[in-house]
C-alpha cells in the first residue's frame, strides 16, 4: 500500500503548491504578468513571520494578521512603482524588472539574516508532525491537510471575489479589455494595483505554510517560483481551479518520482511539466476546449 500513501502525500503536497501558485495564477490571469519575484516574496513573508514569532512569540498563523496587510501594501507599492511601468513598456520588461527585483530581495534577505536556514516549525507546537493514521498505513499529516484546506479556501474566496463582487467584475473587465474598461469608468490602474495587493496577500499565507512545513533560507525563493510556475502551467495558465489541479499533479509526480530514485523528486516534477507542456501544445485543440470552457465559466 506504499503507493497509496505516496499518492495521498502527493495530493497533500499539491495543496501546498496550489496555495503557493494561486497568487501567481491570479496575477497572470488579470494582468498577463508573470512575476519572477513571486517565490522571493513568499520568502520575505516567511522572514517577516519569523521575526514576529521570534521577537514577540506570536504563533505564525496569528502573525499573519499583521503580515498579510503589510504584504498587501507591499503589493500595491510593487504595482505602482514597478509593474505598472513594466507592463506599459512591453512584453519583455515585466520579466526583466521582476527578475531584478528577485535578485535584490534574495540578496537583501541574505544581507539582513545571513545564510542560516530557519523554520517556523518550532513555533507551531506539534502541528508540524501531528497526524492521523488511516487503515492501510496512510498517514494524513495535520499541517499538510490544513495547507490543502487553506488552499481550497483561498481559491474559493478568489473565485467568489471575481464572480460575485463589484470589484471582481471590475477586475475581470480590466483583465479582458483595459481600454474599454476605462471607457465605462473603471480605473484600470487602481484595479490592477488592488489585484497585485490581493495576490500578495495569498503569497503571505503561502509563505507562512512554506515556513511551517520546511526550512527556508534567503535563496529559497527561486525554487519556490519554479514550483509555482510549474503548477500554474500544468493546470493551464490563467485558470484558478487549474492551479489546484496543476499543483496536485506536480505534487503526485514528485512523490512518485521520489520513490523511484533519490533524485527523482525534482526530476519527476520537471519532466511532468515538460510533458504536459508538449502535450498541450501538440494536442491543443481537445484540451484547449476543456480549459476554455472552465475559464469562461470562471473568468
Amino acid at each position: 500500500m506504499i503507493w497509496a500513501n505516496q499518492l495521498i502525500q502527493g495530493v497533500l503536497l499539491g495543496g501546498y503548491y496550489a496555495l503557493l501558485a494561486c497568487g501567481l495564477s491570479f496575477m497572470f490571469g488579470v494582468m498577463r504578468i508573470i512575476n519572477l519575484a513571486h517565490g522571493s516574496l513568499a520568502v520575505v513573508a516567511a522572514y517577516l513571520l519569523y521575526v514576529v514569532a521570534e521577537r514577540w512569540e506570536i504563533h505564525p498563523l496569528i502573525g499573519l494578521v499583521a503580515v498579510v496587510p503589510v504584504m498587501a501594501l507591499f503589493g500595491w507599492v510593487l504595482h505602482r512603482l514597478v509593474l505598472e511601468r513594466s507592463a506599459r513598456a512591453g512584453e519583455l520588461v515585466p520579466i526583466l524588472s521582476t527578475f531584478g527585483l528577485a535578485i535584490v530581495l534574495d540578496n537583501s534577505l541574505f544581507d539582513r539574516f545571513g545564510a542560516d536556514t530557519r523554520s517556523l516549525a518550532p513555533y507551531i507546537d506539534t502541528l508540524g508532525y501531528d497526524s492521523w493514521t488511516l487503515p492501510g498505513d496512510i498517514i494524513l499529516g495535520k499541517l499538510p491537510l490544513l495547507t490543502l484546506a487553506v488552499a481550497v479556501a483561498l481559491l474559493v474566496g478568489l473565485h467568489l471575489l471575481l464572480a460575485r463582487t463589484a470589484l471582481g467584475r471590475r477586475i475581470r473587465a480590466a483583465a479582458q479589455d483595459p481600454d474599454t474598461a476605462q471607457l465605462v469608468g473603471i480605473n484600470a490602474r487602481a484595479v490592477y494595483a488592488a489585484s497585485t495587493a490581493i495576490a500578495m496577500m495569498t503569497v503571505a499565507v503561502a509563505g507562512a505554510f512554506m515556513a511551517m512545513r520546511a526550512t527556508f533560507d534567503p535563496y529559497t525563493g527561486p525554487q519556490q517560483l519554479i514550483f509555482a510556475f510549474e503548477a500554474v502551467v500544468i493546470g493551464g495558465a490563467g485558470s484558478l481551479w487549474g492551479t489546484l489541479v496543476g499543483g496536485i499533479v506536480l505534487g503526485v509526480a514528485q512523490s512518485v518520482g521520489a520513490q523511484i530514485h533519490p533524485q527523482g523528486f525534482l526530476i519527476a516534477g520537471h519532466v511532468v511539466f515538460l510533458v504536459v507542456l508538449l502535450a498541450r501544445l501538440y494536442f491543443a485543440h481537445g484540451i484547449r476546449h476543456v480549459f476554455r470552457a472552465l475559464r469562461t465559466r470562471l473568468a
Partner: protein
Amino acid sequence: MSLLRIHGLEARHGLLSAVRGIDLEIAEGERLALVGANGAGKTTLLRTLAGIHPVSAGQIVFDGVDITALSAHQRCAAGIALVPEGRRLFPAMTVEENLLVARSAGRGGSWQVDSVLEAFPQLKPKLKALASDLSGGQQQATAIGRALMTNPRLLLLDEVSLGLSPRAVQAVYDSLRTLLETRTTIILVEQDLQRTFDVADRIVCMLEGAIVAEGRAGEMSREQVMGYYFGNRPASTTRQVTTQ
C-alpha cells in the same frame, strides 16, 4: 448653453496627423452627426474626446471644465460615455455583468439595469448569456446599454450600424428613439446617411482630419453631404456653415 467646447484639437497616429485643428461647440441636448469617409478622423475624434486617445494639441472643455488632462475613466465620471466602434463588450462576462460593471458609483442618474432592459427589450431573454454568444444586434444593444449605465451627459456613438443586418440596425435605432426622448446630448458617427438625417439636429462633415462643412440637418442636402463624404472640397478653404 454649450456643454462641450473643443478648441484647436489635434491628435495623431504615430507621426500621422489624424485630427487637426478641430473647433467645435455642442449645446446641451443637441444631436450632432459626424460624417466622413473612412480615415477622415471621426473615430479618432470620438476616442480623443473619451480619453482613450492622446491629445497632441488643443483643449476640450466640458460643462465649463477643462478636461483635456483627465484620463478616460475620469471623463466617464464627468459624464462622457463612448460606445466604441466594434462594440467591445467584455466577452467572458454576461450581458448583466457587462451592464453592472459600468454602473456608476458616483454619478446620480436614472439609468439602471431595468431601464436599460426597457429600452432594449431584445436583451431581456439574454441577460445571463455570455457577451460572446450574442448576435451583432444584441451586442450593439448591450454596448449602448452599458454606456447608458454610466448615466452620461454626453453620449458618443461610433458607427452603431457597423456590421449589422438591416433588421438589427432598425432594432437598434428603434431603441435609440427612447433615448432621444430623454434629451441626452449625442455625437453620432454613422455611415448610413439616411439614419444620420433622421436622428441628427446638426451635421458636421470631416475630411482628412479637418471639418470642411457643417449645418443644420434640415438645411443641408443629401447630395451636399454625400459630396463631402466622397471627398469633394468646398470652393473656399474656410469651412462652410449652412445656416439659412
